[in-house]
């Protein structure tokens, strides 16, 4: 079995809010912009007070999966979820269920955006905020 990995935040105080991680996630799919980004960075109350990074933490027992009415979300071995686009009806329940707000919405296709744990974004964080690590049980 291959190890399940996830993006983890090493130190969000180092984050400068450049959003390169967000751009990387959409670029991974061959687009510019931010429409498919599964990671989000916003200020914690104005730029002066620093930034929060929001990304799926690959829960071992994921609340988002439990509310999916069609079985489009399944539990990934080791933690986190997989999304089957064909089964997804765009109800948005998972978005509300994630306590971290780590499922995003793409209104262009009316479907959720769920992290696929590829680690691409980590390579584009210039300030060592992110790491790609093994999910510990």
């Amino acid at each position, binding site marked *: 079995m291959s190890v399940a990995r996830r993006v983890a935040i090493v130190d969000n105080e180092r984050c*400068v*809010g*450049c*959003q*390169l991680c967000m*751009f990387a996630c*959409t*670029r991974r799919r*061959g*687009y*510019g*912009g*931010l*429409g*498919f*980004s599964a990671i*989000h*960075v*916003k*200020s914690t*109350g*104005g*730029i*002066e007070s*620093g930034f929060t990074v929001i990304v799926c933490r690959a829960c071992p027992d994921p609340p988002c999966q439990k509310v999916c009415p069609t079985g489009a979300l399944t539990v990934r071995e080791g933690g986190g979820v997989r999304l089957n686009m064909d089964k997804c009806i765009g109800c948005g329940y998972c978005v509300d269920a994630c306590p971290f707000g780590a499922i995003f919405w*793409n*209104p*262009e296709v009316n479907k959720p955006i769920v992290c696929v744990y590829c680690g691409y974004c980590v390579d*584009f964080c*210039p*300030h060592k905020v992110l790491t790609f690590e093994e999910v510990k049980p």
Partner: protein
Amino acid sequence: MTLGKVLYIDLSKRRSWVEDRSELFSDRLGGVGVAIKLLEEELPKGADPLGPDNVIVFAVGPLTGLYPMASKTVALFKSPLTGNLGESHAGGRSAVAIRLTGYGAIVIKGASESPIYLAIHNGRVFFRDASGLWGVGSSLTVGRVIREREPGAGVRTIMRIGRAGERLVRYACVNTETYRHFGRLGLGAVFGSKKLKAVVISGKSSINVKDPASYRKVYDRIYEMATKTALMRKYHDIGTSMNVQPLNTIRGLPTRNLKEASFEEAHMISGENLAENYLGRRVACSHCPVACIHLAALREPYEDEPYFYKTTMISYDYELIYALGSMLGVSDPEGMLRLMNEVEVLGMDAISTGVVLAWMTEAYERGVISDDDTAGLKPRWGDWRVYLKAIRMIVEQPTEFYRDLAMGVAYAASKNGGEDYALAFGGNEMPGYHTGPAAHLGFLTGARHSHLDSAGYSLDQRLLKKGLKPSVEKVVDYLISEESWRQILSSLVVCYFARGIYRPEMVEEALKPVGYSLDVEALRKLGLEILRDKNRFKVREGFNPEKLKPPKRIYETPTPLGHVDEKLMEEAVKLFYERLAL
């Protein structure tokens, strides 16, 4: 591709519509290249800069949202300070938000009768009442209120004005994301005249790319250059403020209204000292790995209660240190930071404000103005407490003299006297370089009268290092070619700090996967064309190159390259416009 869509907003009729201007964008890239055309189309000749006929154009470019450091928004308008071309650039989240809400440019015209702010979310425009926000003392509070009220956290820009914009100070700025500014030439006053308190824009769409594989390849190269080479290091480490010491050493740092060109206490306000003792956080514009925005943490005790402090984050840059530090003889870093915070709170251009205060101090020293004029203030070099009060007075305008100051230094001096030491070029207050003739020639002939137009200051410094003394022709040609190329950067909306990465060949490469095929020669030609368009617009609005004269002061104080020669300067200005061939 959504870049070709232009959003038009009429504040008088509270109406908005969208037009497809794809052709304009394929001919002229975006940014300033497109915006100057839109401004020409929309602005009636001779329009009052503070009347409803003035037009504001915001434009972004074909690389925005795709590559790092293409995140500047260009704003064009008619300047209430100079009476001709108004142009200023700001980063933050503005450019990415405009592009990802679905537009390449936004044109705002007309004027509202009562205060409003605009909210543009995913392409839709909302006119929101801002009567409650009008008159709020701090532009930072305005940002805070809107932040709580509007959606789009993380992918939005909040452009807003402070009291200075409301009060039509001709060099009021528009603040965005708290620490970035459309600083120069008075966009804030134009907002104020339209009763436009703020513009919020959010968007998160994706952008189709013609060739995704090569797009990613070019991206990786740019990213490597930005993060793994020395190209961007100086902006990243100490930031632009690292210029203070070297400029002071060569004696090119304007000090006390340029009575001198070096400051004996420069080490106190140097980038090194600020970084060591005050730097609290560094932040970045959207899609920029460099993070050049340096925020100082200023801790101040409350006087009414022991062990009770407030900590304010204040952004600083070289130009602010020059204008509110050496120009005013202020060496106390905390005093200087307070001045920076004050112009931020009120929403004024820091360079213009500093130059105005410096002139006021010298005029007072010489007895050209009196205590009646200053309403009792006694300006004195280094006394930041007085300057703090004077800044407020420029906004409140309790006497005619402060109303004059609010019009800019050229106007104030033409009315009160002291023109020889009123440091304005083409009506715009002087930037922080007394490096030699090229700098001053650039201030005079640059379309915005800004140091960034043609960067003569950097040519001066290179000539000094190499001990060269080129002919007037050579210098003029260099400035025209540099300013032309910068029109391309400003049409792509690439940050000038990244100009070492976005060399002509790299620009050609970066444009290909996006669907543009322009070679280096075509790019250079287009740059010159845009520069001519801007100057033609200036002339159309009354700019007369023959009347361009620098203040006498620049001839009196020696530069690192010696005294600037008045005759040669006049010759150079003439030659510049001949070669530009409008």
